């Protein structure tokens, strides 16, 4: 069900096209927002638990007398969100007020636009672009404008350092991410996300699903380069030098608190969702079932797609709580001297592979 379908539906009842359009966009947008909020709520809880388990702790439990956060602390995130909502809304006196207040929205928009293009199922997608992959890669970069804005407007050395680092990092890592996402595009010959998934129907060697990651060694490598670059683009540990708690207080969000900070957090998790969704679509077969030929109805498709995203988000958390942060020069080294050459070789290799094997 795309937004076009909704526009057509409403146009039948409402004569004014702009009203039908706005109505359709609102109705399509609200579930996405709910999904974003739900994703952040659950992911924060899971992240706390995963981090705790990896450190031999047990994380939020919320037992004991008085106010408590439910069994196993499941209500912890809701308590945190409530706390953020009732916090004082502070704006530094010397900040650039307009940019300071605008930055969270820009970052939020960047994340939100990305979710809109994700193919949740064979029939469930808000907007089915012909250039879906390109679109997601493009709107994912909107966030960096918001980050630089936030860093600049805060009028704080830590924020500015964080923003500059973030700009350098995200712009650098977009190159390997873009180069390695070319591999599935070359193989499928399309940028449309649904066609890309349909290309991955069937199975290879009878057992493995015909996902692009299993198709040839180059695409296998490309998946890892893309995924690691995606982690870097979402500013998560081990690539969290823009935040870098031990060096820069909180990086570009040092001056933010309360609801604005919550929006940053929401966007961070939404970004994780988007890049995981793109990785799942381009390399892991999107809504295709892992058992070729079974469980392929649209509803199962939604389940598989969300399952793959959840798995990839878990891997991101796994990275975060295992690896120490990279230094700035190491970060650039990994990107320019390792990922980009390998990604370029990948493109070359997959071209040869396509010529010879098909």
């Amino acid at each position, binding site marked *: 069900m795309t937004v076009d379908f909704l526009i057509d539906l409403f146009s039948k009842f409402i004569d004014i096209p702009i009203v039908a359009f706005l109505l359709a966009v609102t109705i399509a947008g609200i579930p996405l927002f709910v999904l974003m909020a739900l994703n952040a709520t659950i992911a924060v809880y899971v992240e706390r638990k995963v981090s705790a388990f990896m450190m031999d702790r047990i994380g939020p439990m919320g*037992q004991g007398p008085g106010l408590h956060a439910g069994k196993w602390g499941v209500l912890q995130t809701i308590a945190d969100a409530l706390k953020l909502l009732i916090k004082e809304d502070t704006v530094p006196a010397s900040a650039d007020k307009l940019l300071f207040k605008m930055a969270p929205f820009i970052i939020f928009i960047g994340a939100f636009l990305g979710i809109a293009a994700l193919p949740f199922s064979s029939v469930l997608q808000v907007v089915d672009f012909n250039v879906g992959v390109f679109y997601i890669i493009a709107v994912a970069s909107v966030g960096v404008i918001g980050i630089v804005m936030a860093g600049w407007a805060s009028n704080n050395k830590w924020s500015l350092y964080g923003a500059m680092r973030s700009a350098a990092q995200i712009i650098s890592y977009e190159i390997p991410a873009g180069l390695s996402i070319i591999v599935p595009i070359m193989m499928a010959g399309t940028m449309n996300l649904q066609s890309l998934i349909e290309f991955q129907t069937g199975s290879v060697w009878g057992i493995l699903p015909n996902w692009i990651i299993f198709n040839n060694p180059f695409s296998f490598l490309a998946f890892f380069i893309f995924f690691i670059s995606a982690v870097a683009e979402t500013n998560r540990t081990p690539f969290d030098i823009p935040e870098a708690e031990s060096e820069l207080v909180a990086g570009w969000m040092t001056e933010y608190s309360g609801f604005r900070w919550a929006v940053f957090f929401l966007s961070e998790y939404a970004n994780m969702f988007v890049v995981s969704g793109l990785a799942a679509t381009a390399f892991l077969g999107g809504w295709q079932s892992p058992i070729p030929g079974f469980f392929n109805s649209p509803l199962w498709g939604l389940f598989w797609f969300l399952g793959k995203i959840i798995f990839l988000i878990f891997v991101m958390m796994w*990275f975060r709580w295992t690896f120490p942060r990279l230094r700035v020069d190491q970060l650039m080294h990994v990107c320019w001297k390792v990922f980009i050459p390998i990604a370029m070789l990948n493109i070359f290799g997959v071209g040869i592979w396509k010529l010879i094997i098909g």
Partner: protein
Amino acid sequence: MSRYFTNIYDTVNTLWTGMRITFRHMMNIRRDNVTLQYPEERWPRPERNIGFNHEDYNVIRSRLHVDIDDCIGCYRCERACPVDCIKIDTIKSDRGEDIPTVKHTGVTSNGTKKGFVVSRFTIDMSECCYCNLCTYPCPEECIFMVGGPNSSKHPIDYEFSEVDRKDLIYEFAKKLTPKQRENLTKTDEKAEA
């Protein structure tokens, strides 16, 4: 050039090793968990020997307890207390007679006939210095040290915290309404007269 590829191999290898370790810790959390959920779980206090036979005296000096039905109101523990945290009031009654209205039993479990109704027996545990001196003079052995509130779950238990310091003053005597107290006092005066 070979250094370059060796570096990449080493990186992937070591990162994978690290990820395996954290994953193993995550999976074995039930075994490896180090956090105690404090109010529900506690570290047991180590046993110690202070020179008494553990069976005879409860030397786990967690808090004092009084079996008020056995108390004859002799004030010996109050006098023994070095910090005066025990406060006792008594009202004279007929020796060895039950008074059902205030749930007073006339005879202790040792067979001693009681001459007093204990109308107040408070121990201020915030003042108590855990010296155990009050337990020795008690002729009925009705005041003794016991474990804390969690002693049913853990054999050795120690914490008993309260939100208000006043809640640390433990009242062991049976509650008397003012009227009952008045009645008892009247009979007391009558007996003296």
